[in-house]
């Protein structure tokens, strides 16, 4: 299944940001930090995705399995892309980052 592990998210995020050829624009650590931020933000908007009282997961390695329901994995991927791109200080990247963040929010809380 797609988007199971941290490595899956990294691969897809690099594809969407056209950052697939070394030397990369953004290191893996940036993507993983963005993914962890996405988990925190998902917890804020959709606490039902983390029911059961377990501590909020945090990921460090590419082999870690990302514990998000299959229906909302794409939303977390979009947040990861948008959050990574926020580090880029070119004006057109800001707009693209905002689009990713809007898609993240709308996928979590609306039909879209």
């Amino acid at each position, binding site marked *: 299944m797609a988007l199971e592990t941290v490595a899956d998210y990294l691969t897809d995020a690099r594809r969407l940001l056209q950052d697939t050829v070394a030397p990369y624009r953004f290191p893996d650590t940036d993507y993983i930090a963005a993914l962890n931020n996405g988990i925190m933000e998902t917890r804020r908007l959709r606490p039902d995705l983390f029911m059961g009282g377990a501590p909020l997961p945090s990921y460090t390695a590419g082999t870690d399995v990302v514990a998000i329901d299959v229906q909302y994995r794409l939303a977390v991927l979009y947040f990861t892309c948008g959050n990574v791109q926020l580090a880029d200080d070119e004006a057109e990247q800001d707009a693209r980052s905002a689009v990713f963040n809007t898609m993240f929010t709308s996928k*979590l809380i609306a039909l879209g």
Partner: protein
Amino acid sequence: MDYLRLNLPGALDGVVEMEIANTLDEFLSKTNAWTAEMPLRVKDNKQNYSVKPAGGSVVRLIGVLDDNPDMDIWVPASMPSLDIIALRNNPGRSATFRAFVALKPSPNKGLEDIPEWIYENHRLPIQHGVIGRMMSHPAKPYSNERLAIYNMRKFHAMTAQVRAEKSQEYLYRGQVWCYPRNFARGTQRS
């Protein structure tokens, strides 16, 4: 579950199951649709007896029946707490009475001990209740205030109907009073 998923895009199965438990709790508490009969072994000079049904938790006492063929009457009793049956009078002998209680899901067991026939017999009110509750959640892909109101109205109407029918033990025209047959004349016209 498939029907609920169809109506609630983006809903998590765990949340749907939680709302099924909440809906069943309200539905069964209001209707007395799930009842159990338990033997109550009474003794002389003892009026309080603890009860624990095999499945579910007690909502209320429906009645206690004295099983003595000579008596065969409802015994005055109440339930000061949901695990104690208190007889108003001393039974005066050792006997086995029959206690009837209404049940709802146990909070710690969830849906595990719900009999299948409850879903089969009351599928529609349960579906409306779950969809209505889910759609009233804030800021979810399946949030829909208007449909939440519609579904909850249907749920409450169907619940009231089941409550009324259960109170007459599902007997058609159970509330209609009539003279014994010997009082009847030939037809209504004569």
